[in-house]
């Protein structure tokens, strides 16, 4: 159980660290933003508090140092500076290393970071002025954020009515702050003959659950605080997930209304504690009533929180979701068989059931896939840090603008998208954005701009990395392509085709290697990674203006829409995302091309790959074959097959180890009747025939 809790803590902490990093970077741009300061503080507070609870004492004590400083930032005693952000980011990395259990290479960094934070505290060594000493862990109770419950004991001055103040108004003000309960303490009210009816004899125990924090509560009493007795205590910080707040006796002991010895003695008598307390006169009825209200109030707050959390989300290990999607995949296949069987039997009842199962399976599939969807923003936030650090290293001034962070992608796609995007951003920083001096000379703002955007377009997600840097040099690329013999000097090609050269292995126009680029990963690797995700990549650039790289990806890799085709008796699936149209190829068309594998499609010459030949399949092709025209990187290439059957929902099964590296095949799927169909990797097939097609 303990390990489970520690795992849960780690998971939560990773999420908080990601949020923390995002907030810190935003804070650097808006150092006065109180909301951001609050977010940083709360993240640190939670990491610290839960860390101590689950046995990560080192994290708790380290984070405490950071939290202390951010508490002072909230109070306006410490300003947000670049140094503070740098230090906080370093602390964030340190916490992450501690979570991972890694002993960082430079473990001596930790004391340095701590010393750095301590140095920021007003009154610390080297700092002028004096400030309040930071509270040790666990003592502070003033943070705003998650709803916490407070016990407020308020005894106004007896002559409060004469000053014009009305305690009822104060109670009503508190009521506006959150869930509120009030218990009047009436012990001090005298008998009728002795009472001065214009004086206040009542005091109150108030219970308030609010996210507004300590200060908001204290503010309510600001005008009466000097003459009143006021004690505000946080009794539930909003993180405990149990619904069994203290027992009645414990509450009274915690309040100082009962001593522990008396409680122990009473408990030994095995009486109902409330009755026993009142009958023995140890505690007044008012105080017992108040303790009961406190108990009920906090338990209700905890229960409400649990319900809210329970309703909002539930943590499920991703492996379980993967398994679910696998099972749904199997179900989709079986359902296809059922539909096929129903057609064969021509039984209306069976057909009706098959249709119902088809509908339900479709819904189940969509839901299961949806569960694995993650917003792309989860990786975007990392890039802010990357751009910040790299621009510092390269002496650039660059702002990263992200949009569409809420765009969702399958978890697997998202995980595999990270590296290509990192590479593209590095490229933009290193080769795209000019140094501030050069930019100013060119009449551009000194601060460059990289935008990273994501959006949905049908069943695809479009991700664009755009910079306002120097753009690609068409001439240099052309010269290099000619030099490599990839392009005849006299051939005119479109910019898109020209730019696609830089995604070929062995092509680089970079004159120098920097620490950022030149790491042995080129655009060809990016392209391969994107194509492995069934996606495509396209470059658009204008010299001196900037470069835009567009990645199109399918929403998921588990189930795709495919086009089912046949060659001889064998079935193949072409991912529908790359298919633009299908046209016929007659023997006359072939004869007209004089041996070239080219077809004329509406006045456009489209090269094609003859799959029957490519796969060395025996038999004769039919008189009229079909060309499935695909479009990748702006170029159209056809795949010639015998017959096009139609669209097919395709559950992708990976190939066994022996077949995994067969070029041109990316997987397999089972058809309704149990037949295996191979899924074609159009990009690889076309690449494999590139030389032939160019000729």
């Amino acid at each position: 159980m303990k390990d489970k809790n520690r795992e849960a803590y780690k998971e939560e902490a990773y999420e908080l660290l990601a949020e923390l990093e995002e907030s810190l970077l935003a804070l650097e741009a808006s150092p006065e933003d109180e909301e951001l300061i609050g977010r940083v503080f709360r993240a640190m507070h939670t990491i610290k508090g839960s860390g101590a609870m689950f046995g990560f004492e080192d994290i708790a004590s380290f984070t405490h140092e950071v939290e202390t400083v951010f508490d002072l930032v909230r109070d306006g005693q410490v300003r947000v500076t670049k140094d503070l952000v740098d230090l906080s980011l370093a602390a964030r990395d340190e916490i992450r290393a501690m979570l991972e259990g890694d002993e960082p290479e430079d473990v001596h960094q930790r004391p340095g970071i701590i010393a750095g934070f301590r140095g920021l505290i007003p009154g610390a060594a080297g700092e002028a002025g004096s400030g309040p000493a930071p509270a040790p862990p666990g003592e502070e109770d003033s943070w705003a954020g998650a709803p916490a419950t407070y016990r407020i004991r308020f005894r106004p001055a007896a002559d409060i009515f004469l000053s014009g103040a009305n305690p009822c108004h104060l109670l009503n003000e508190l009521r506006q702050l959150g869930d509120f309960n009030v218990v009047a303490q009436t012990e001090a009210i005298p008998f009728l003959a002795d009472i001065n009816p214009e004086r206040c004899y009542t005091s109150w125990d108030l219970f308030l659950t609010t996210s507004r924090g300590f200060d908001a509560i204290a503010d309510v009493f600001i005008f009466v605080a000097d003459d009143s007795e006021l004690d505000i205590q946080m009794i539930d910080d909003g993180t405990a997930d149990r619904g069994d707040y203290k027992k009645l006796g414990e509450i009274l002991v915690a309040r100082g209304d009962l001593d522990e010895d008396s409680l122990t003695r009473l408990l030994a008598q095995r009486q109902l504690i409330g009755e026993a307390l009142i009958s023995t006169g140890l505690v007044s009825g008012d105080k017992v009533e108040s303790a009961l209200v406190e108990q009920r109030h906090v338990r209700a707050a905890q229960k409400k929180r649990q319900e809210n959390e329970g309703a909002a989300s539930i943590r499920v290990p991703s492996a379980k979701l993967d398994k679910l999607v696998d099972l749904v995949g199997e179900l989709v296949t079986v359902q296809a068989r059922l539909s096929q069987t129903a057609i064969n039997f021509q039984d209306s009842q069976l057909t009706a059931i098959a249709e119902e199962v088809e509908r339900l399976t479709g819904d189940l599939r969509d839901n299961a896939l949806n569960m694995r969807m993650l917003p792309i923003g989860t990786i975007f936030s990392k890039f802010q840090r990357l751009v910040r650090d790299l621009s510092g290293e390269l002496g650039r001034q660059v702002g990263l603008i992200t949009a569409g962070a809420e765009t969702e992608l399958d978890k697997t796609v998202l995980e595999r998208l990270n590296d290509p995007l990192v590479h593209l951003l590095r490229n933009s920083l290193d080769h795209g954005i000019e140094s501030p001096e050069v930019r100013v000379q060119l009449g551009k703002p000194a601060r460059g701009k990289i935008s990273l955007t994501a959006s949905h377009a049908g069943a695809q997600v479009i991700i664009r990395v755009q910079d306002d840097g120097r753009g690609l040099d068409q001439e240099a690329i052309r010269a290099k392509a000619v030099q490599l013999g990839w392009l005849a000097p006299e051939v005119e090609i479109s910019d898109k085709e020209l730019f696609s050269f830089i995604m070929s292995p062995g092509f680089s126009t970079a004159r120098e290697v920097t620490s950022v680029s030149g790491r042995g990963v080129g655009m060809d690797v990016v392209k391969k990674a994107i194509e492995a995700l069934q996606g495509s990549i396209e470059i658009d650039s204008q010299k001196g203006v900037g470069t835009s790289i567009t990645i199109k990806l399918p929403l998921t890799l588990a189930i795709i829409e495919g086009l089912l085709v046949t060659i001889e008796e064998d079935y193949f699936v072409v991912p529908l995302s790359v298919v633009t149209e299908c046209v016929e190829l007659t023997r006359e068309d072939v004869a007209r091309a004089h041996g070239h594998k080219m077809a004329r499609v509406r006045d456009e010459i489209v090269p094609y790959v003859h799959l029957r030949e490519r796969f060395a399949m025996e038999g004769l092709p039919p008189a009229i074959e079909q060309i499935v025209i695909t479009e990748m990187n702006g170029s159209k290439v056809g795949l010639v097959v015998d017959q096009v059957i139609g669209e097919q929902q395709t559950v992708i099964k990976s190939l066994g180890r022996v077949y995994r590296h067969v070029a041109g095949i990316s997987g397999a799927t089972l058809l309704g009747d149990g037949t295996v169909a191979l899924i074609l990797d159009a990009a690889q097939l076309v690449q494999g025939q590139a030389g032939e097609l160019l000729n």
Partner: protein
Amino acid sequence: MDMKKKVASKTEVVTFSGDLTIENAQELQKILLAAMDNAAELLLTFENVTATDLTFVQLLCSAHRTAVRSDKIMKLASPRPEVLMAAVRETGFIREKGCILDTQASCIWKEGWQ
């Protein structure tokens, strides 16, 4: 503020109306004291109450304590005016159990305020 007194057998009925607030607090105290002197059982009723505040709620609590100490009975009639109901709720006087002085279990704050 108006006040009517009526003795019905042993029970003295005191009817409050108008503003039961700090401006009239001393007079209200006198009325309650006088009624308490005159009868063994006191029934407080309300008619056209326009306002009330904490001082009156305190007075009611004080009167009840005094009644219990003198072995007298003090009751509040229903229906009670909404302004009084609200004042009692808002100031947290409602109780599940009476205070230590409430030996007869007759605490006026236990029932009829919700």
